[in-house]
């Protein structure tokens, strides 16, 4: 039996005005078109698709950063549109995000210790000293020894290190769901595995759920339990990762799989 979903999208759509000036009739782009999805505690759901498939727009709706044009997103059974005050702040704390390029979402003039301490102070209401102590512990946990990294500025870190800061900052609020939009796409292969391992560990320790948005089916296989394949704003296939990747039903999934087939990887595991 399935556990109660934490985060759930019911038949959500989102359209954007595409072109048209003051007098022209508006053309609408349906970025997401009638998608339903649920995320249970502790599981990893991957959303895959190519650019323009609507996967990031769906991610933004799950985060409450974008309101659906129709349908609804709910968190612990309550529609996001109806959340106010303390309930909204709780959603904001419990559902965190990691972006592809954490460098761009870190304040360049703020030390990474402070960047991780901010959500501790605002979301958890900790005092300055306690927040710094916890930030240091989090940096240790993501493999950035606090003694060495607490006072560093973002530009002195490598891409993989910045991505760890992004994860530490997301974990700081003690979330139940982390939406990660292409968190490892910009990283070198050897660093990518380190970041994925860190995400797996934090999941095991905290019972976190992940929504993992990616175009890389190798990453999906390594980290996700379920996968949702999107194309043109719609879900074309969904199911357990093992079932979908071993026996894809939709031709688009098959094409994605053929295009991303990594024979080198298979050879290296023999």
């Amino acid at each position: 039996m399935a556990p109660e979903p934490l985060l759930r999208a019911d038949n959500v759509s989102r359209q954007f005005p595409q072109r048209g000036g003051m007098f022209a009739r508006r053309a609408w782009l349906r970025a997401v078109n009638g998608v339903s999805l649920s995320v249970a505690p502790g599981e990893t759901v991957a959303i895959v698709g190519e650019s323009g498939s609507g996967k990031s727009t769906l991610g933004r709706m799950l985060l409450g950063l974008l309101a659906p044009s129709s349908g609804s997103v709910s968190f612990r059974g309550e529609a996001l549109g109806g959340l106010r005050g303390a309930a909204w702040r709780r959603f904001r704390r419990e559902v965190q995000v990691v972006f592809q390029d954490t460098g761009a979402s870190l304040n360049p003039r703020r030390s990474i210790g402070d960047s991780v301490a901010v959500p501790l102070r605002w979301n958890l209401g900790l005092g300055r000293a306690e927040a710094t102590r916890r930030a240091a512990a989090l940096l240790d946990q993501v493999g950035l020894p606090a003694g060495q990294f607490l006072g560093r500025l973002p530009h002195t870190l490598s891409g993989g290190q910045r991505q760890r800061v992004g994860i530490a900052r997301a974990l700081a609020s003690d979330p139940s769901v982390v939406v990660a939009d292409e968190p490892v796409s910009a990283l070198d292969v050897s660093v990518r595995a380190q970041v994925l391992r860190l995400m797996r560990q934090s999941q095991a320790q905290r019972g976190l759920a992940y929504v993992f948005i990616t175009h890389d089916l190798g990453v999906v296989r390594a980290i996700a339990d379920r996968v949702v394949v999107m194309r043109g704003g719609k879900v074309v296939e969904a199911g357990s990762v093992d079932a979908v990747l071993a026996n894809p039903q939709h031709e688009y999934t098959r094409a994605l799989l053929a295009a991303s087939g990594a024979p080198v990887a298979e050879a290296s595991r023999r």
Partner: protein
Amino acid sequence: MSAVLQVRGLSVALANGTRLVDDVSLDVGAGEIVGLVGESGSGKSMTAYAALGLFPTPHARIAGGAILLDGRDLARLTPAEWREVRGARIGMVFQDPSSFLDPLLPVGRQVAEALAAHGESRGAQARVAALLAQVELPDGVAARYPHELSGGQKQRVLIAAALAMRPRLLIADEPTTALDVSVQAGILTLLQRLRDEMGLAVLLITHDLGVIERTCARVYVMYAGQIVESGNTAALFAAPRHPYTQGLMASLLSPAVRPTTLFSIPGTVPPAADMPAGCRFHPRCPLALPDPCAARPPELTGEVRCWRAEEPATAKAWAAHGA
């Protein structure tokens, strides 16, 4: 096969003496796609910039070695001579096609500029049409603006511009990295076709071993500014000898297999200003010995730069590390 590009003992250094590329030698023959693979900071793009005489910072310069294009040493060219070679004898394509196209000009005009820059404006319109057809773009694309084209189409426009003067050598630096996987395949197939039809020599720079395997006959693996292994692609991937190459391959994720452990090479690439003594990979290597690995730098012998390459245990360097 005659080598179109011969790089011999190339070193690139910053003004303060830091070596970004150290003693790199490589060949690219006519009608051949050769891969140069490495992680960020390995010096692979710097090697390409040296071959193009285009460093991203004025502090970088060629500190030694030769770059021979059909036997002519490019390292000694004056800026004016470089302008004749670059774009005419050597074409180039980069990662992000959008940043190389002017958003305010139709793309056909931009391909024509590649001809005009070398004084070949006559009959440009017909030649542009032929070039765009050669890269498999539909009729009418010449009149379109960059924002009307997809990422893959923009990359094709840039390939057309790179080929306008029928260069002998094309340097492609991560040409498919910013593109969707299904679009990537089309661009790689196009490069292979151009290689065959024009006898083009292609130096393909990428961090993606899958791209290398799919397109390159031969491959050079770079680490920390040096070539650490090279050879025939199929043979090298079937039996990589350098522990770094083996580690890179073990880090790959396949959609077909769920890995029980997620392998990664411990540590990070050393900064160019602070290279370890001895073998540059020894701080991360499972087989490193105090002597010779940490003491003396290994030479590139028999296509691999490793003191312990001949030992049987080196074939499975990471066996005890979950790879």
